[in-house]
């Protein structure tokens, strides 16, 4: 039987396709996000092969010292985390009653280890796509650890795959603590973040450690969050101060640049912090 050809005008074709695009545009984001994650899950193998190839090409020159440096950074971050946790414990020990003496910052916390499929790290976006085992209690906003330091938060997830928005992403905002003050940290996009307009009375210098705050952020201010859902019980290291310079807007303020505490591009797996996991 001869095939019947139906002639569709260009205008009609464009209209129909545009309509399809607009439907996609207005569709619920959690649904379309699942399609994106599904694509990554289906093509996980070629995507990770390509990523590994690019990583090898990037790191060929510094292969000799990359491994010990990474191990060193990892242990150093662990040490900083323990230090921060210890200080927090000591403070609580002094202030709280006997009931709180038994408090453990990570009690009731679950860690889900996830393999990195792809890493999108450029000036426009800084994001990892990770594959995790079937875990419960996954929600958006949960913190993600890489080499014992906070690297970002879960921005989207479906069964087995999740997007991690790095704290260096230009659209990322994260409460952070530096020099004893809690401020909002915003991503720069060039593998760094900034803490803008910090008062000069706070003595911040290059090399100071920056910790992810366990407090909530309202606008640019960090506030206590006793009544709200928290994704972190204890402060954890995010990075180090790489640059401190006088703010362009006000000479009495600092603009602080923060570099990650680990080499995010070389991460092979990460750990997602699940607070109060469902049993």
């Amino acid at each position: 039987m001869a095939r019947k050809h139906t002639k569709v005008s260009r205008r009609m074709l464009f209209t129909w396709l545009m309509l399809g695009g607009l439907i996609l545009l207005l569709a619920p984001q959690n649904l379309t996000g699942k399609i994106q994650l599904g694509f990554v899950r289906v093509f996980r193998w070629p995507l990770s092969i390509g990523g590994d190839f690019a990583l090898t090409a990037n790191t060929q020159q510094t292969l000799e010292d990359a491994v010990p440096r990474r191990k060193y950074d990892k242990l150093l971050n662990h040490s900083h985390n323990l230090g921060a946790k210890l200080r927090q414990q000591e403070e609580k020990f002094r202030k709280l009653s006997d009931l709180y003496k038994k408090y453990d910052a990570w009690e009731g916390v679950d860690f889900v280890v996830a393999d990195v499929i792809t890493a999108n790290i450029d000036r426009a976006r800084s994001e990892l796509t990770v594959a995790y085992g079937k875990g419960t209690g996954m929600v958006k906003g949960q913190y993600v650890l890489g080499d014992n330091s906070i690297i970002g938060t879960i921005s989207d997830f479906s069964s087995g795959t999740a997007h991690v928005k790095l704290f260096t992403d230009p659209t990322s905002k994260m409460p952070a603590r530096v020099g004893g003050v809690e401020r909002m940290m915003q991503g720069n996009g060039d593998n760094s973040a900034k803490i803008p307009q910090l008062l000069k009375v706070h003595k911040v210098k290059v090399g100071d450690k920056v910790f992810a705050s366990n407090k909530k952020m309202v606008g640019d201010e960090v506030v206590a969050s006793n009544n709200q859902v928290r994704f972190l019980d204890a402060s954890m290291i995010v990075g180090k101060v790489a640059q401190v310079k006088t703010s362009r807007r006000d000479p009495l303020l600092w603009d602080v640049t923060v570099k990650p505490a680990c080499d995010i591009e070389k991460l092979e797996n990460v750990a997602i912090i699940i607070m109060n996991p469902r049993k």
Partner: protein
Amino acid sequence: MRWFRFAVLILAATILQKGMLARFGFKPDLLLVLLVFFAVHCSTSEAIISSFAIGLAADLIGSPMPMGPHTVGFGVCGTVLAYLHRVVAIRKMPHQALAIFAAALLAGALTHLLAVLIQSEPLAPNIYTVLFWTSVCSSIVGPLLFMPLAWCMNMKINRLRRR
């Protein structure tokens, strides 16, 4: 138009863009290069279909931006380019580079505008710089890829065709 080859080519470019090129700071947008290639070397109807298909592929790897803006942005841009090609021939490499540069700026701006206006996505402060450098990279690399792309698609691109 060989649609199976087209699908394989788009899939390969999508995986390459998301996997290998994702780790580089400044990189060409391969899907955008393909958009210009098909808009310039196919009939107008084929160019319209391929533009929307390439936009859909760009949306699949467009996270954290939700799906939709790339499909519409690339679709409009590819259609405009296909109609423009009926009037102005884009044969020489500098012209192709210029077309890619303009298409990258237009598609990028439209995509981000739609994401911000309709889906209230936060706009990165450095988005204009990124858009500019991606357009520059694409316009440098793009014309060099036209010949291998034509070979893959079994197309003759040297003869002047205006539809």
